[in-house]
């Protein structure tokens, strides 16, 4: 029996109502509209192109992705610190981290950068126990490290750790470095350090004293 006009209309409405919903969770496919290749980097240097004199500034508008996450309960992970801080130069460091913070967190504090800095060879550890895990943290990026099996019995590779010191501006000639021997899988901590007048900077490096990346650290310092 053929459908009546109202029935046909109803079917049409239902089709357009439910078909999009049926595919709502499916993937969207974006086809490449043009196969393009960028020019060489040397052609993309600053000043290589003109924007017609237009301003290159932007004014992005902050937009929230949702309500702020809050919890009325106190953080059970946070714990109070104990112990006074002595004999440490208070400097302003990367993102506000101070020497005091370093002392409390790592058991040492990087000291004032300056001419008195010199490299000191750290003793090579000879009893690196096998530990296939480690974590490297450099300026906010986390990398999980694995210790190669070939290094179970000794530090077959000496990794150079740089202790960089420079005055502003930062000419390459002012940078110096020293090295230490580490074990693959050791934990590393680095910190960009500058003084309160922003006239001196230093890249501080610390290496774990064992293959336990959560254990104690030894700074490469004066």
């Amino acid at each position: 029996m053929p459908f009546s006009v109202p029935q046909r209309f109803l079917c049409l409405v239902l089709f357009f109502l439910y078909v999009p919903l049926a595919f709502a969770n499916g993937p969207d496919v974006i086809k490449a509209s043009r196969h393009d290749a960028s020019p060489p980097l040397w052609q993309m240097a600053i000043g290589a192109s003109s924007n017609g004199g237009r301003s290159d500034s932007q004014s992005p508008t902050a937009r929230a992705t949702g309500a702020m996450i809050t919890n009325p309960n106190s953080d059970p992970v946070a714990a109070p610190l104990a112990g006074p801080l002595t004999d440490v130069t208070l400097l302003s460091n990367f993102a506000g981290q101070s020497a005091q913070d370093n002392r409390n967190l790592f058991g040492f504090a990087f000291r004032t950068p300056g001419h008195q800095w010199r490299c000191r060879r750290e003793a090579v550890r000879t009893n690196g126990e096998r530990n296939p895990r480690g974590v490297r943290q450099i300026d906010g990026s986390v990398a999980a490290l694995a210790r190669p099996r070939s290094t179970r019995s000794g530090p077959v590779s000496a990794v150079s750790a740089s202790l960089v010191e420079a005055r502003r501006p930062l000419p390459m000639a002012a940078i110096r470095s020293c090295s230490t021997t580490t074990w693959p899988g050791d934990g590393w901590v680095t910190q960009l350090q500058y003084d309160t007048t922003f006239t001196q900077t230093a890249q501080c490096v610390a290496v774990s004293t064992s293959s336990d990346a959560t254990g104690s650290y030894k700074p490469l310092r004066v």
Partner: protein
Amino acid sequence: MWPDAYYNTINVFPGKGFAGAEACAFDRNAMLSGASASAICFQQPPTVFSLLPADLDGSTLPPVGAPNYLVSLADSTHLNFFRFHVDFSNVANSTFTGPTLISVAPYSEVCARAITLSCIAQPNPGEKVDGLGDRVMFRLAYRNFGDHESLVVNHTIKAETLAGVRWYEIRKSGGAVRLPAVHGGRSRRELLARQRRYGWNRQPRPGFQRFQP
């Protein structure tokens, strides 16, 4: 970076509203060979925001066919965990599954999103900066250790009146489909709660710990 694709996520703001995060996989093999490449994307609802795809570390690849993993903040006691399986030859086989909720210790954001963006104090005469506590921070590092697979990630939390950085290890072992478990989930950074300084975005010191039930 994943063996089968390059993964990218965005927060979608059509007009003035927020539509949710979108996860896309770009055809890596086609791109490396210079062929025309396509992208397969999954749009999520507004309850899902700021997804972070896993980034491969190490020389041991994930198991063959393993999906890419994605993590985002869910609420004050959970993380969202997603799996993104992409199939460029048969788009219909592509799947985006989740969220699986992973329980974590209670936390609060340190700065209100897009309302009080800048709440982290800086040394004089610096202006306050955004804590970016509304998302897990780059990167979600993945590594296949052979006997288990791990993901590590961190985010900024409110530690009393200040800020701290909390990290998590999400570990999978055994079969390919198992609910991941959080190992660790604590950070010495949170010890900064009683300090008169912020722990925001300073180098957190995550590490792989033994399982602590």
